[in-house]
């Protein structure tokens, strides 16, 4: 089969309709139909926004040969008069897996047993999830049933592919021509190249285990293909060859969600590739960023059903964010249109393809104009596929792919009668059914009844009256025959009169009647008058645009209606913790202007700034958490023992409520570290917690470069059954570092020599460490390994920047001070595993006393919002002075992160990242009242109270709307709470990407 299909593909050319002309024929004579088909008197919508009244369309051999009002009709034409009907180009879905069986995985955790680290295939890329050589044709089987469903919804052409893997190979463009053979309906066997962030189900190769790993793998793949292309590779790689071959095709990326479209676009930007982005339907909530991608989007129309909130206990599960999405999702296409983002619409993510048109109509009800809707289904997908010449429009030379409809395409009462594909008619609903509605006098054997037929012509309703009494009745009307059944006057008796008649052009209906006693006779229904149509008022009622609640940034509870504005503020009479030589100043004013601290002193004049009375309150610089895992979509890339190529910056999640909660705890900056699954982890993201901003605005400008390393039980995989990955001991960990740094050094030397080299993101990162451009924050516990890493670093002539956790730092504090490394530790965690048996809460104090720069960190979304309390424990455990203890969570982490020139103290010229506390900042009784970053108030305890009220009110309103939807009989889904994964170092798997 494969071979046949492939050879067919090769033969595909200009001969579509006649592709089999030269095939031997043994079952009859050769028949070639060279007649023309002509449709006339239609309203022809050639392209969105353009229509020809009384238009004619001429079709020959599957293509349109003429369109217009005065076209020459060839003599050998079959002419069809479609008076009053509309003709539209049929739809194109650029993103489907039509005719492809979805690959199934084996299930189970990929970490269990002995994970597979290497690739399963030979002659291909080193990673099984890169499969650009996949040709969808090899697993394609035309699906008649599905095609019928799609034809019914207006689709004429679909683009299909194998939805499996990160690089998924090429797709097929298929016309939904059920009666044809592949030779005819296969429009392209290499229509586009497909990508996603999801691994292949066909392989259990572990890497990548995370979203950031998928992103890094894509990058490396692109580096490798250009290396391969320039002929430098010594070995054969069929995957890279395919990738190269596919580069001129449209590149379609299934991102799956708004934020992932940004991530995909960023990869594309780096390699000069503009992906077509398959989105998530939630693009409306950060539309400016969507626009900034400059991409064409493919949108799903999977608008959520209302949640069933009739049980108040269950209703409590549904978050404001999810409620809003129910309300706002149908506006998504309209919002993209309003902002000038091109898009096509797809059946992707719809459970039933036959709900597609209803969803398009819903989008229109929610503000999408009909012209854009049509374009999104015709010209835009044609453009995406580079097929504007022959698809998406009704024009000469294009495929004869069009719909014949009763009226305006997206009108509520419109009917699609026929969907023509490649000049072949597919009937959706019978056309030309005679409208038999009207009021008739029905006469049977001398008895007269009043017969009232109403409703749609193809599905009429009936009422039969005998005098004033309405009889029970039923009508069936199909294939030109009408049959009516009605009861006797006495409803208690089961007696029926049955009528059957063929419908003729005559206004009256005459046929056979069978009386209740079985007697057969004739009847005549004499047409009296037509029915009045009463639709108009009803229609208007339906078109009312539903109430849409406002989007906030982020679009969840506690989001900002608009992003906070920079303010100039004068804090009067505060106790100011400067963290500088001045120490703690009482009754002091601090002026912030233009996002900076501009003056500190007594009796400062406001100079136009807003004055805040801070009497009795304390003003400090914002808390900095050296070790955080909030606001990230992934933490560990556990697929390799080194993952220096991955970066958390790729997976920053700006919509995490924990950002807001951190702000409420006085935190303004954090380092999101990679986890501790491997000795060489991934690169960090250093953020300012600007709640509401998008990911790239959270990351520090000119951010210092960091990477996570890890030692001990986690990297040797001691606490779960995994025995196949090197290293399994601390001895192995040392040699792993020796190996990687040796190789990185060689790599760097080669690179600097100017000779050709294969760009390797992992080696680039490690070389940055060797060159002092990137800093290590190393997860560490016991003294032996701490000492070891310092010695390894010294061998390679660099310094470890920070040991994080560093619970036995107190045992080697003198060595740490000598090496010049900082310590970022927990205040008092211990006993959760063997290597923290000797962890003591005095650790910070001892290291501090030995001259080590000490920070207290959280590694925990909960503790991070109480870091002031954790710092205060250093006063208890080891007698650190309050001023020094405070620096443990402000100035010292700023130093360790190399951002102390910008933040970490209250000093003129530094960023206005400050916190106003109700009390002494180290007191258990204090609360952050205002948390300010660069002069913008991101948390205000008073506004928080207002927000709580607003959330309640808005939820109440949305609940009422959902209850109304349920009462109207609309479908609902059970109330549920979305999974929220809280990460810490040891979290092995990233969120179900």
């Amino acid at each position: 089969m494969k071979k046949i299909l492939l050879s067919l593909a090769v033969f595909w050319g200009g001969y579509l309709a006649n592709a089999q002309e030269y095939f031997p024929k043994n079952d009859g004579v050769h028949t070639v139909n060279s007649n023309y088909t002509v449709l006339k008197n239609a309203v022809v919508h050639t392209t969105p926004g353009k229509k020809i009244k009384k238009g004619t369309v001429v079709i020959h051999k599957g293509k349109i040969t003429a369109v217009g009002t005065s076209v020459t009709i060839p003599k050998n034409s079959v002419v069809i008069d479609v008076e009053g009907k509309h003709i539209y180009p049929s739809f194109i879905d650029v993103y489907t897996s039509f005719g492809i069986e979805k690959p199934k995985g084996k299930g189970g955790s990929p970490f269990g047993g002995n994970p597979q680290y290497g690739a399963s295939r030979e002659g291909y890329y080193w990673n099984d999830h890169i499969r650009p050589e996949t040709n969808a044709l090899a697993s394609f089987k035309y699906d008649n049933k599905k095609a019928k469903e799609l034809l019914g919804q207006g689709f004429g052409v679909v683009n299909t592919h194998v939805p499996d893997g990160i690089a998924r190979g090429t797709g097929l463009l298929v016309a939904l021509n059920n009666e044809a053979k592949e030779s005819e309906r296969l429009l392209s066997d290499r229509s586009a190249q497909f990508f996603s962030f999801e691994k292949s189900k066909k392989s259990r190769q572990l890497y990548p285990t995370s979203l950031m790993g998928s992103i890094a793998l894509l990058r490396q793949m692109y580096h490798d293909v250009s290396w391969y292309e320039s002929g430098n590779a010594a070995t054969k790689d069929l995957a890279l060859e395919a990738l190269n071959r596919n580069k001129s095709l449209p590149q379609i990326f299934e991102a799956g969600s708004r934020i992932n479209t940004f991530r995909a676009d960023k990869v594309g930007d780096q390699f000069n590739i503009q992906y077509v982005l398959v989105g998530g339907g939630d693009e409306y909530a950060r539309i400016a960023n969507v626009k900034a991608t400059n991409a064409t989007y493919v949108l799903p129309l999977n608008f959520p059903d209302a949640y069933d909130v009739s049980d108040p206990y269950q209703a409590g599960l549904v978050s404001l964010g999810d409620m809003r999405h129910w309300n706002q999702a149908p506006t998504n296409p309209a919002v993209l249109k309003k902002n000038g983002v091109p898009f096509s619409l797809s059946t992707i993510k719809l459970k039933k393809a036959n709900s597609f048109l209803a969803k398009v109509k819903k989008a229109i009800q929610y503000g999408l104009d009909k012209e854009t809707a049509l374009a999104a289904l015709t010209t835009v997908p044609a453009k995406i596929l580079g097929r504007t010449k022959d698809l998406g429009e009704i024009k000469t030379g294009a495929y004869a792919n069009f719909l014949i409809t009763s009226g305006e395409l997206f009108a509520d009462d419109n009917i699609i009668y026929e969907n023509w594909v490649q000049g072949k008619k597919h009937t959706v609903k019978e056309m030309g059914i005679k409208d038999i509605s009207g009021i008739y006098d029905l006469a049977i054997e001398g008895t007269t009844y009043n017969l009232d037929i109403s409703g749609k012509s193809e599905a009429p309703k009936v009422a039969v009256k005998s005098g004033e009494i309405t009889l029970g009745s039923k009508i069936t009307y199909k294939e030109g025959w009408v049959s009516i059944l009605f009861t006797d006057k006495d409803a208690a008796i089961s007696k029926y009169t049955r009528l059957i008649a063929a419908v003729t052009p005559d206004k009256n209906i005459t046929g056979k009647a069978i009386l209740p006693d079985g007697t057969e006779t004739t009847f005549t229904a004499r047409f009296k008058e037509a029915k009045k149509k009463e639709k108009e008022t009803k229609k208007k009622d339906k078109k009312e645009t539903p109430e849409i609640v406002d989007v906030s940034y982020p679009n969840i509870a506690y989001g900002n209606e608009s992003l906070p504005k920079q303010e100039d503020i004068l804090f009067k009479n505060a106790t100011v913790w400067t963290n500088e030589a001045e120490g703690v100043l009482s009754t002091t004013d601090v002026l912030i202007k233009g996002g900076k601290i501009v003056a500190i002193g007594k009796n400062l004049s406001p100079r136009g700034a807003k004055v805040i009375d801070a009497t009795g309150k304390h003003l400090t610089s914002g808390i900095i958490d050296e070790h955080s895992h909030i606001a990230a979509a992934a933490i560990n890339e556990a697929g390799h023992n080194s993952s220096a190529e991955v970066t958390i910056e790729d997976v920053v999640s700006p919509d995490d409520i924990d950002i807001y909660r951190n702000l409420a705890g006085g935190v303004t900056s954090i380092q999101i570290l990679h986890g501790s699954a491997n000795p060489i982890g991934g690169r960090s993201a250093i953020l300012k917690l600007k709640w509401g901003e998008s990911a790239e605005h959270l990351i520090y400008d000119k951010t210092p470069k960091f990477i996570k390393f890890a030692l001990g039980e986690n990297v040797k995989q001691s606490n779960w059954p995994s025995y196949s990955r090197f290293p399994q001991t601390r001895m192995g960990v040392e040699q792993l570092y020796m190996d990687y740094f040796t190789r990185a050094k060689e790599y760097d030397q080669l690179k600097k020599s100017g000779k050709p080299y294969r760009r390797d993101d992992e080696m680039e990162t490690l070389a940055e460490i060797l060159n002092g451009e990137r800093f290590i924050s190393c997860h560490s516990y016991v003294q032996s390994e701490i000492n070891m890493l310092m010695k390894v670093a010294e061998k390679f002539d660099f310094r470890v920047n920070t040991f994080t956790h560093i619970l036995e730092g107190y045992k080697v504090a003198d060595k740490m001070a000598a090496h010049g490394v900082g310590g970022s530790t927990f205040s008092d965690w211990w006993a959760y595993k063997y290597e923290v048996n000797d962890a003591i809460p005095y650790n910070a104090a001892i290291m501090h006393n030995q001259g080590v720069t000490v920070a207290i960190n959280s590694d925990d979304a909960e503790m991070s919002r109480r870091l002031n309390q954790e710092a205060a424990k250093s006063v208890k455990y080891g007698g650190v002075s309050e001023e020094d203890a405070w620096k443990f969570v402000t100035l010292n982490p700023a130093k360790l992160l190399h951002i102390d020139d910008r933040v970490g103290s209250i000093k003129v010229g530094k960023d206005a990242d400050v916190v106003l506390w109700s009390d002494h900042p180290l007191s258990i009784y204090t609360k952050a009242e205002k948390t300010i970053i660069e002069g913008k108030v991101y948390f205000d305890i008073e506004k928080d109270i207002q927000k709580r009220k607003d959330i309640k009110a808005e939820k109440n309103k949305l609940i009422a709307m959902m209850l109304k939807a349920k009462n109207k009989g609309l479908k609902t889904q059970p109330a549920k709470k979305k999974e929220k994964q809280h990460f810490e170092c040891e979290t092995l798997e990233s969120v179900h990407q």
Partner: protein
Amino acid sequence: MKNIIVIILMLFVSIHINAQQTPADTQKEAVTIEGATAHIGNGEVIENSVIIFENGKITAVAKQGSVTPKGKVIKAIGKHVYPGFIAPNSTLGLVEIGAVRASNDEEEIGSFNPHIRSIIAYNAESKIVESMRPNGVLMSQITPRGGRISGTSSIVQLDAWNWEDATIKGDDGIHLNWPSTFTRGRWWLGEDPGYKANKKYAEQISKLDEFFVNAVANNSDAATIQNLPYHAMKGLFNGKQTLFVHVDTEKGILDAIRFASKHKVNKMVIVGGSEAYKVAKTLKENNIGVLVNRTHSLPDFEDEDYDQPYKNAKLLVDAGVLVALQNSGDMERANARNLPFQAGTVAAHGLDKEKAVQLITGNAAKILGVADQVGTLAVGKDATLFISEGDALDMRTNLLSEAFIQGRAISLESHQTKLWKRYSKKYSK
């Protein structure tokens, strides 16, 4: 700086003559603490107090001058005295190192395990147990985990040679993990990973029902062949034991209350109760106490107030419910020493400071049914108390100079202080 450390070290050494880890001897001589601010544990404070204890029991708590000091006198002017803090619903001594399976004795297999008794596995010599004492946590309820009915807890004091000596009240209560009203999708099987209504909720309650009626039937005839699980339930129906129902949701709490009353359970307590504040009135009317969820935790829902866990206890106190704190959850054993700071956090979020003290003293004792012995500074009660340099609910001033359990002057040393001293000494050379 080094000098300061040395001075601090010397202070420490001079105060604590007792050998580390060795349980203190029985009180022989009367002790009087003079001049301290006494936090009684019932909401009251006595400034310039005199506290006297003899033979392990408190014999006087009064304003200075109203009673004559006796025996050894400790001058504590400017200092604070508190009843020993109590950590309910803990697994102290049941697990030493979380990740080392061999050191783990907290959870038995099976669903209905009322006969499983925590006390016999309690390791009185745990390094974690001794680390509680320097922060004022001197008593705990040792509670097994897992199953529908986890087992039977006991209440101990934290300075003992063995579990028998440690016991304040053996087999005080039975712990029931109420069926969840919600379940999580098993994402690894391709299910939606969110939380949804638990479809088996009613079925799980009916299994519990069955167990309880059988337990009652079995216990009503002494001649019946012994069934250990049923027999272990006896105390719930004769008033000797408390039913601790671990449940968080509003609906679950209401169902649990109806369940307990249906089965004529004498005394019940809610453990967890994240949403208990929503049914505070019912809890008060039914005289049901709450061991509320860890204060230092994140809100359960995205839309919740950021300080919801901080203020849960306060909301219940305000509604007249008897509340104490407990600390079950991640790393619960090591973190149990932070109980005073959790109480402090509740105070930061609106509760009166003395009421916050009650959350880990008097209220806890009442809820655990040991208020006749411990929980407040009152004549006749155990002399289990400590002296702190300052406010014991604040990290900076929670600095214990002396602590007593049943009148015995206990060591405030630990594995951790030993290491601190050892390495401080190394660097001071």
